[in-house]
């Protein structure tokens, strides 16, 4: 079935070529990083995680969001989602792969990554994150590929696939919960030390992931003619809307607890992000942009006339994804390090090398997604014919 990814139009190959170029650039930047050390990034002693971990956090959410199509289709037999499931599952595969690459890019000694397996540490959340992410990748790849293969042969999928698909549902929740637990259990970082972090991660993931899924189905419609269907897109939009509402509600509760309680440690993180702290305010415009984009997206999604108009739906989805990308990435990860445990403020600035590596990893994810979707779309088109 993979051979279907090796046949394509001129535009298809141009796209692959462009992605390969980006991957090459990213690889080159990564080797510079390997040689000179992580000093080539914007990270430092006070802000010890940056763009890579921010991207990791965002894409774990995107990966988990596949559950938003798996549940309605497999658990509740909502036939409208039939053509979106494969897209969602393959998106989860690509996103999980990107997460793992971002972790590798961020590590000081990636040559020692197997130490996590050689010396398992169940008390460490990173250990569990590695386990569940790898498991999720395998589960989604195997189940999606098998179901697709069965469709191609015109037979029902084998019986063993069903339990694996059902397993992917709680597993999706677990990958993002474990990722939230990476942050939410650290006593020294008060922006993260909140029980609401895991539910917020899930809500923002479901909002951003489903919006991204809508966009991908629209891109597929435009480039290949494969249409997942407007009904599916509208249902996804509804899911994104309410997930988005939950996310912003939880941000609101964070603000309340911090500012009503007046506890400095709780307030400082949000103050730095949204209002500036001690004159340092580099992230303030980003955070307000994120809120603006998010609320704007919700306003569009709540309006049925706009939601049904393709142009406005696209704008809403782009807005939602960008808003949560800023919130989870820029806001959450960088904000956690300000102020430092010694109440000092160091601001983070991204470097070109860092951006190039990130671009390369994005390109790897998009390439994997392209190849997998090419197979999926070809198979589905053959079946329709």
């Amino acid at each position, binding site marked *: 079935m993979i051979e279907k990814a090796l046949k394509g139009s001129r535009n298809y190959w141009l796209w692959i070529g462009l992605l390969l170029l980006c991957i090459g650039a990213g690889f080159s930047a990564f080797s510079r990083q390997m040689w000179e050390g992580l000093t080539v990034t914007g990270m430092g*002693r006070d802000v*010890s995680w940056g763009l890579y971990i921010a991207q990791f956090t965002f894409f774990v959410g995107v990966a988990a969001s596949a559950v938003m199509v798996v549940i309605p289709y497999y658990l509740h037999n909502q036939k409208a989602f039939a053509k979106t499931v494969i897209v969602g599952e393959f998106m989860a595969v690509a996103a999980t792969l990107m997460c793992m690459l971002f972790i590798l890019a961020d590590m000081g*000694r990636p040559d020692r990554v197997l130490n*996590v397996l050689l*010396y398992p540490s169940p008390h*460490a959340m990173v250990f569990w994150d590695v386990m569940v992410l790898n498991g999720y990748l395998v589960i989604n790849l195997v189940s999606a590929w098998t179901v697709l293969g069965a469709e191609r042969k015109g037979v029902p999928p084998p019986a063993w696939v069903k339990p694996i698909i059902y397993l992917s549902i709680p597993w999706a929740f677990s990958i993002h919960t474990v990722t939230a637990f990476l942050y939410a*259990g650290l006593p020294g970082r008060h922006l993260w030390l909140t029980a609401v972090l895991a539910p917020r991660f899930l809500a923002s993931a479901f909002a951003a992931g489903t919006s991204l899924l809508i966009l991908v189905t629209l891109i597929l419609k435009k480039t290949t003619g494969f249409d997942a269907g407007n009904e599916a897109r509208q249902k996804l939009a509804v899911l994104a809307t309410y997930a988005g509402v939950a996310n912003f509600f939880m941000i609101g509760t964070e603000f309340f607890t911090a500012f009503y309680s007046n506890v400095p440690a709780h307030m400082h993180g949000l103050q730095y992000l949204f209002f500036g702290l001690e004159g340092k305010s580099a992230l303030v415009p980003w955070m307000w942009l994120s809120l603006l984009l998010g609320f704007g997206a919700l306003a569009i999604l709540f309006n049925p006339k706009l939601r049904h108009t393709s142009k406005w739906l696209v704008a809403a989805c782009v807005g939602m994804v960008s808003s949560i990308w800023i919130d989870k990435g820029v806001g959450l990860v960088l904000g956690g390090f300000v102020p430092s445990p*010694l109440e000092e403020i160091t601001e983070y600035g991204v470097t070109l090398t860092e951006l190039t590596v990130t671009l390369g990893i994005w390109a790897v994810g998009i390439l994997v997604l392209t190849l997998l979707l090419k197979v999926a779309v070809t198979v589905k088109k053959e079946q329709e014919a």
Partner: protein
Amino acid sequence: MNEDRRSFIKKAGIGILAGIGSAAGLFPALSLEKTVLPAWDEKPEPGKHRWGMLIDTRKCSGNCSECVAACHFTHNVPDFGNRKDEVKWIWKSSYENVFPTASQQFQSPGVTERPYVALCNHCAEPPCTKACPTEATFRRWDGIVSMDYHRCIGCRFCMAACPYGSRSFNWRDPREGIKLASTEYPTRMQGVVEKCNFCSERLVKGLDPACVEACPEQALVFGDLNDPGSEIRKLLESTETMQRKPELGTKPSVFYII
């Protein structure tokens, strides 16, 4: 593709993988003789000693940084001249930075204008060792929170977990930042986390930590917290002391006399 060909390739693939896997497991072990390391001598009793430090900040003067210099020289801690790549095991800071959760209101200028030395607290319940995915950082039998630089994968989770900002990362090759190399202790390599180790290599020789020895005012007292007769315990019982962020439940081993 032909069905028979496909199933053959599948079976051959699995067979090759299984073969390589078992070969990798069996052959090296068969070719090397077992090393015989007789006797587990002197394995230390966990919890018998608990090293701790008492810092009498009243004796600490503003201009002196002997403790920092001694530590950083002895352990080949690099200096790159910029805050971003900074590596420090012990440093001087101010009252509001070292004790941010203590009262900042109407403190006497004698207290707030003094320098305060900050270092790894070697907590009894360290959040950093909980966070480490490879147990490269772990709490030793004698209370010291130790780093195994050979195992560290550089994920910097421990840095995020430490509520005291005690840990530094080697963002670049440390050897480029060391002017005089001491031979008493190795350097570290690019990509691993490091921090104060309570001079465990000196304790083994019966010496005090480098900072304790270097302080001209003897402001640093080091000893066994589990020994009620030790100097540090006697001082703790007779003087009022303070710790950094005790509300977090980390149970630090470093005490301050204000």
